[in-house]
């Protein structure tokens, strides 16, 4: 049984490497479509290069390629250490990790080929939906199997968040993907009309909630105390925040459908629960900020802690902006504008990507038993990430508020003052600025990939035994 007494860390290394490759691919696709909005002809008449197909590759690549690989890798890494046992069913874990990469790669190609289920953030067609559901169940078996055989009685808070991610995403994905297949590449949703929209945004918003927020909070709750070398400021607050978060998030989806053909009370409920959500979201932010506040001396030696500090700032912004935009009198102007795109990216770049970068700078040197190849490069990356995110958010705030105002502007006769086409044509300078922001952010990610590659190159994964 000697082999079983080591943590299964090779899988965390594999998934980290995959996450970095997906980050580069997904972000590069994002930069390309940002360029297409400035120079529309650079699709060269190729369907696979059209905005409609590349945009899906971008979102699926960064959320399910980069995000999920990072979450799976860090969940497998941390659950062993918080339970003091090696991973349950390591072969199944490898099947799940490798299968996910193959599924995402094939799924990405299918999106470029034009297969599309027509649901935002759930574009992959039914064969992939089935594969994702099976792999996700495997993820759950490995994760909860490890928790079941733990040697520490309390279940640490990061595992509550990772567990919430696994259970809720399984539920959302399976229900939202229920469809009638017609051919291999085409299916139709089992839900019709407004109900389809409600189910879709129940899925869509909670994918943001339990994957992009809850899942990454699991990452924060494990890696922040490790970085800071001190416990969470208030453990009780973290548990209260988890249950409040889980209870309130699931109701918030209808705020994506304000002023649409769904019952008004459903819209109001979605709005109110979105506002309630601010409390648990910020409880976690305060917990994080106060944990770091006591560990300021670590900033001298840990280049990655800065990423986490900044990630918390953008988490605070995004979790405030979201509830605010769910208020109907704000949403009437902001909906369908680039303000929404800016909001998503303040979360995706400022929170998800930065917390993951900070985690990888911490994790990779420990996985290979060395030190980071270049602290200086990591510091440069930090400033590129901050500049890229800020530029992106500012460009989209400017574009979004202008669009909202111009679309609704009326003349003295009550006619709309401006045509949609003219308004969109005038957005080119903002889109150029957004392109610059994307290039700046992506170049930072390239530096990280290079830095971590040189950190890990030629070094085997360190073998660590449970205490």
């Amino acid at each position: 049984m000697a082999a079983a007494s080591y943590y299964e860390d090779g899988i965390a290394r594999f998934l980290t490497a995959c996450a970095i490759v997906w980050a580069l691919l997904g972000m590069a696709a994002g930069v390309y479509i940002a360029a297409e909005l400035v120079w529309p002809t650079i699709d060269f008449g190729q369907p696979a290069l059209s905005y409609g197909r590349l945009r899906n590759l971008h979102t699926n690549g960064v959320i399910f390629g980069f995000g999920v690989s990072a979450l799976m890798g860090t969940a497998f890494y941390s659950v062993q250490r918080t339970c003091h046992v090696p991973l349950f069913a390591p072969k199944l874990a490898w099947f799940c990790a490798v299968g996910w990469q193959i599924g995402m790669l094939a799924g990405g190609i299918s999106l470029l080929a034009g297969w599309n289920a027509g649901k935002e953030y759930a574009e992959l067609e039914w064969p992939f939906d089935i594969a994702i559901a099976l792999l996700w169940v495997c993820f759950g078996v490995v994760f909860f199997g490890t928790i079941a055989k733990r040697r520490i009685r309390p279940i640490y808070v990061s595992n509550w968040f990772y567990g919430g991610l696994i259970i809720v995403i399984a539920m959302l994905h399976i229900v939202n993907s229920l469809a009638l297949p017609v051919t291999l590449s085409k299916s139709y949703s089992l839900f019709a009309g407004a109900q389809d929209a409600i189910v879709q945004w129940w899925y869509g918003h909670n994918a943001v909630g339990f994957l992009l927020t809850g899942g990454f909070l699991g990452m924060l709750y494990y890696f922040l105390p490790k970085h800071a070398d001190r416990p969470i400021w208030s453990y009780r607050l973290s548990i209260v925040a988890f249950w409040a978060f889980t209870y309130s998030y699931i109701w918030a989806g209808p705020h994506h459908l304000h002023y649409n053909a769904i019952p008004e009370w459903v819209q109001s409920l979605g709005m109110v629960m979105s506002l309630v959500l601010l409390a648990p979201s910020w409880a976690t932010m305060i917990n994080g900020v106060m944990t770091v506040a006591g560990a300021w001396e670590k900033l001298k030696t840990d280049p990655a802690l800065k990423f986490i500090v900044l990630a918390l700032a953008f988490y605070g912004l995004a979790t405030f902006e979201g509830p605010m935009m769910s208020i109907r009198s704000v949403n009437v102007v902001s909906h369908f504008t680039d303000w929404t795109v800016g909001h998503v990216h303040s979360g995706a770049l400022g929170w998800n990507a930065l917390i993951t970068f900070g985690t990888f700078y911490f994790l990779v040197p420990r996985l290979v038993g060395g030190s980071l190849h270049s602290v200086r490069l990591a510091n440069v990356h930090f400033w590129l990430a901050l500049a890229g995110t800020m530029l992106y958010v500012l460009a989209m705030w400017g574009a979004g508020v202008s669009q909202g105002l111009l679309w609704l502007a009326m003349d003295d006769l009550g006619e709309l003052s401006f045509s949609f086409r003219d308004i969109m044509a005038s957005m080119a300078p903002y889109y150029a600025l957004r392109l610059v922001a994307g290039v700046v952010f992506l170049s930072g990610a390239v530096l990280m990939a290079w830095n971590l590659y040189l950190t890990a190159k030629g070094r085997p994964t360190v073998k660590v035994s449970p205490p």
Partner: protein
Amino acid sequence: MTRFYRTPLGLLLHPKTAFARVAESEPAPLHVFFLHIVRLALMPPTLAFVGAWNFGWRLGAAEPLYIETSQLVLVSVGYFIALLVGLTGTAAAARWMAPTYGASKAFGSHLALVAIVAVPLAVGSIAHLFPHVFLNLLVFIPALLWSLYLLYTGLPVALGVSPERGMLMASSLVAFLLVAAVTLLGVTVALWAAGIGPAIGV
């Protein structure tokens, strides 16, 4: 009378001297408020009023958007009050954070720090004279970067904390400011929807 800097240009060239003066003098809050904060907060609304009255707001579409003079006065006064509340509120937030980061607890110092950090943005508001949204954005981005630089370098000096704790406190303030900025955006839009400001079909 305490002056932390003589001209905005002087501040841009020698920022650390200004912050060191704050640390030495521990200025009185009311003094900083009337001498610096009110003056800074007056600049952008005045310039925006003149610009919007003369040229109208250009949001990118063909015709500029003119706002009635009475509405313009209301919006400009609102802008002034928002800036006063915003600047004082930021100082109050910094004062609230001070015990956590072991920083100076003198409210006057926090107010002075905010007053200095806001100078590049106030100077940048010269762009309001020609209210083209994208032009304003282009001017405000470098101004904002300069303000951020002043915040990160000046905070440890003005409030007497180590650079590491200063970095954390400055980041917490950035989070506060991001939230404040987006609140301003949200409140503005909600006011439009309520019929105050430009005429929109809601």
